[in-house]
C-alpha cells in the first residue's frame, strides 16, 4: 500500500453560529478531535466544500465522514453529500437531546447545563461512529445509540484538533470510458509505484486498480475500463516524470 496518510474518520460539524445546538455540534466535534479520538479523526470547515479547492471537496471521498448537525435543516449532511461525498454517518443534536431527555439547550455563546450535557452525549455518539468506521470496511453505518456516557470534558489531556483545511488532498482526473473521474490520492499512488520501479504493464494495472479502490469509489462493472484507464494515466505520469513507462 502506498505511504498515504493513515486511515482516519472525518468529522464535519455544522457549527451553526446562530443556534445553541450549532455550538453543541462544534464543541462535541472538538471534544472527539482533541480528547476522545485525537489520532483517529480529522476535520474540515464546512464552507471549504465551496470556498476551497478540489482537494478540499475530496474530503468525504477520502475519509469516511460523520456529519453533526444542530437542527433539521441538516446543513452539514446535505452539503457534504452535495459537494464532497456521501457521509458514512449523520446525526442531529436535537434528536440526540430528545433521546437522552436533555433540554432545552440555550446559549450559543455560553451553553447552559443542558447544552453541556448535549455536548457529552453527542461526543459519545460521534465516538461510537468513529470506532465502528475504523473497524469496518469502507461504507456507511447507522449511528448506534450510546449505552454509556462519554468521559467528561477535561478527563484527559487534549491535543490540537487535526484540521484538513486547505491541506488539499491530491487529486488527478482520469477519463474512464467517456467519463472524467477525479481520483483522490492518485498522484501519491503513482509516485509510490514509480519509486518501487513498477512499469506501466498489465500486472501493474491490476495492482493500481486495487490500490486506487481503497481510497475511491469506482464505477460499478467497469473494472476493465478502470484498469486500462489507470494504466494509460500511469504511463503518462511516468513520461511526465521522465521515467521509462
Amino acid at each position: 500500500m502506498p505511504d498515504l496518510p493513515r486511515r482516519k474518520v472525518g468529522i464535519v460539524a455544522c457549527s451553526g453560529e446562530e443556534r445553541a445546538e450549532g455550538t453543541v455540534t462544534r464543541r462535541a466535534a472538538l471534544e472527539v478531535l482533541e480528547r476522545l479520538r485525537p489520532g483517529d479523526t480529522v476535520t474540515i470547515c464546512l464552507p471549504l466544500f465551496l470556498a476551497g479547492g478540489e482537494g478540499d471537496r475530496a474530503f468525504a471521498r477520502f475519509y469516511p465522514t460523520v456529519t453533526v448537525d444542530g437542527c433539521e435543516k441538516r446543513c452539514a449532511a446535505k452539503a457534504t453529500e452535495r459537494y464532497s461525498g456521501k457521509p458514512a454517518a449523520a446525526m442531529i443534536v436535537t434528536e440526540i437531546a430528545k433521546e437522552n431527555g436533555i433540554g432545552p439547550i440555550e446559549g450559543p455563546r455560553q451553553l447552559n447545563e443542558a447544552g453541556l450535557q448535549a455536548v457529552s452525549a453527542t461526543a459519545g455518539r460521534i465516538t461510537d461512529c468513529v470506532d465502528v468506521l475504523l473497524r469496518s470496511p469502507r461504507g456507511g453505518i447507522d449511528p448506534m445509540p450510546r449505552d454509556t456516557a462519554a468521559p467528561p470534558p477535561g478527563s484527559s489531556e487534549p491535543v490540537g484538533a487535526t484540521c484538513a483545511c486547505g491541506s488539499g488532498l491530491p487529486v488527478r482526473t482520469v477519463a474512464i470510458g467517456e467519463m472524467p473521474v477525479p481520483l483522490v490520492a492518485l498522484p501519491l499512488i503513482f509516485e509510490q509505484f514509480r519509486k518501487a520501479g513498477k512499469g506501466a504493464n498489465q500486472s501493474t494495472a491490476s495492482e493500481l486498480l486495487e490500490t486506487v479502490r481503497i481510497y475511491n469509489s469506482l464505477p460499478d462493472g467497469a473494472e476493465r475500463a478502470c484498469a486500462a484507464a489507470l494504466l494509460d494515466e500511469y504511463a503518462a505520469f511516468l513520461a511526465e516524470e521522465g521515467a521509462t513507462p
Partner: protein
Amino acid sequence: MSRPDRRVAIVPCSGIGKTYGSVSREAAYELVEDLRPESTELVALSLLVLGDGEARAVLAASPAVTVDGCKLACATKMVKGSGGTVARAVDVLDAYRRNRHLKPRGIADLNEDGRTLAHVVAGELAEAVDRIRDGQGGDDA
C-alpha cells in the same frame, strides 16, 4: 445618508480547526450580543453553504460584515457567492498582526489572550457597523 434603521448582517467564519476561527466566532458573538444587539444580525455560514433561502434573503436586504480566521476567507467568499454585499471584510490575522503581544491559544476554549483578541476584533466590527449605518459604507463597499 444616515440609515439608523439599517441592520447589518454579521457572518463569521466557521473555522473549527484553528484558534483564529474561534476568535472570529467569539468576536461576532460579542458584537451581536453585547456591543450592537439592535443593529446587527448573525448569519450562519453553514446555511449559506446549503443555499438556505432565508439566509440569502437576509444578505439580499442587508449589507454584510464578514469575519475570517484564515487566508482562505470562507465567510467573505460565501457572502459574495450568495449574492450578498460585503461592506467590510475583517481579517482576524490582521488584528493579530497589530497586536502581536497577544498569543491566542485553544479552539474549544480560548485562552485569555484569545478572548482579548476577540474583544479587539469585536471593537473593529462595531466601528464598521456604525460607519455602515451612518451611510459611510465600509472599507470594502
